[in-house]
């Protein structure tokens, strides 16, 4: 695994990244099975878990944090990202494909119009591995940047 370090702005994303790095000690790959939801409580409402589809060509929502479901009124669990609007699906798929291919976390800051309100968010995508060393799930966390 690369030792590149992500530069993050939101303090809770920094904490989550450090938590994930902690799972990498002794050159281990962070595995989904290693995670205990109790340890993820500080971020639980702002998390998304996606399963990498069997053919590796899509990503299916397995968990959608309460902050997002309340805010967007969306129920995405069980549905693939390919069901999203084309442009959004393409952006997310490119990002997730990169994480699966490189075995490395990704982060980005983006600004978008949410019902007339321009907001800036920061999101972090973390890979979780199976016993074969393949990425089987993605742990995504996002927070709004208020500055």
């Amino acid at each position: 695994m690369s030792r590149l370090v992500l530069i993050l702005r939101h303090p809770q994303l920094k904490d989550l990244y450090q938590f994930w790095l902690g799972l990498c000690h002794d050159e281990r790959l962070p595995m989904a099975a290693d995670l205990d939801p109790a340890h993820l409580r500080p971020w639980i409402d702002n998390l998304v878990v996606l399963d990498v589809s069997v053919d590796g060509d899509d990503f299916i929502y397995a968990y959608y944090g309460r902050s997002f479901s309340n805010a967007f009124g969306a129920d995405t669990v069980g549905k693939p990202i390919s069901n999203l609007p084309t442009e959004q699906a393409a952006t997310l798929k490119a990002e997730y494909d990169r994480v699966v291919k490189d075995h490395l976390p990704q982060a980005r800051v983006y600004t978008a119009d949410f019902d007339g309100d321009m907001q800036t968010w920061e999101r972090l995508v973390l890979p979780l591995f199976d016993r074969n060393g393949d990425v089987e799930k993605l742990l995504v966390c996002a927070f709004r940047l208020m500055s």
Partner: protein
Amino acid sequence: MAVEKFQQRRPLEVKDPMTAGEFNLWCAIHDKPYRMARHQWPDGATEWDVEFNPGKPDGTIAYGTGQEDETLATLAAFAFMAGIEWAEDARRTADDDDEVPDVVATPPASVPAPPEPSLYARALALAMQAGTVTPRQIQDALGIPQERALRLTERMEDEGIAGAPDVNGVRVILVSTARLPGNS
């Protein structure tokens, strides 16, 4: 959209009661096709249910917790999952363990009766409740020969459920069961 209006959880709140989100995250992490959701009855009353295959065409409600309180409902949901895991394990054990009598009869498709737990499933339950396991403990509890009890504990280690034995032959259970009712 205003996510900031939601109170964010901080490390200081780690002792909070369990939430449906925690159950749902546990299911997502462990590939369990279940999710807690709050449903409203026509009379306005609400109840937390456990959905099976949420968001999929064959999605359905697998279990009604009968609880309006989220914490109590989450406990009930974890208890439901404990039963599901027990039944799944009993089926696996009956399939691959030729020393266990065929106690898991295939029920008719219309009768989803849970199978009777196998020796291994019963040994697992005992070990998880105790937090540690020894062949003697299993031998006494299940009334089986020592050699058989030893193989059951070795299988737990092989499957990553129990650690290697210490100098006294005691194996520590490695799988977290703190979330399950009765094991807190």
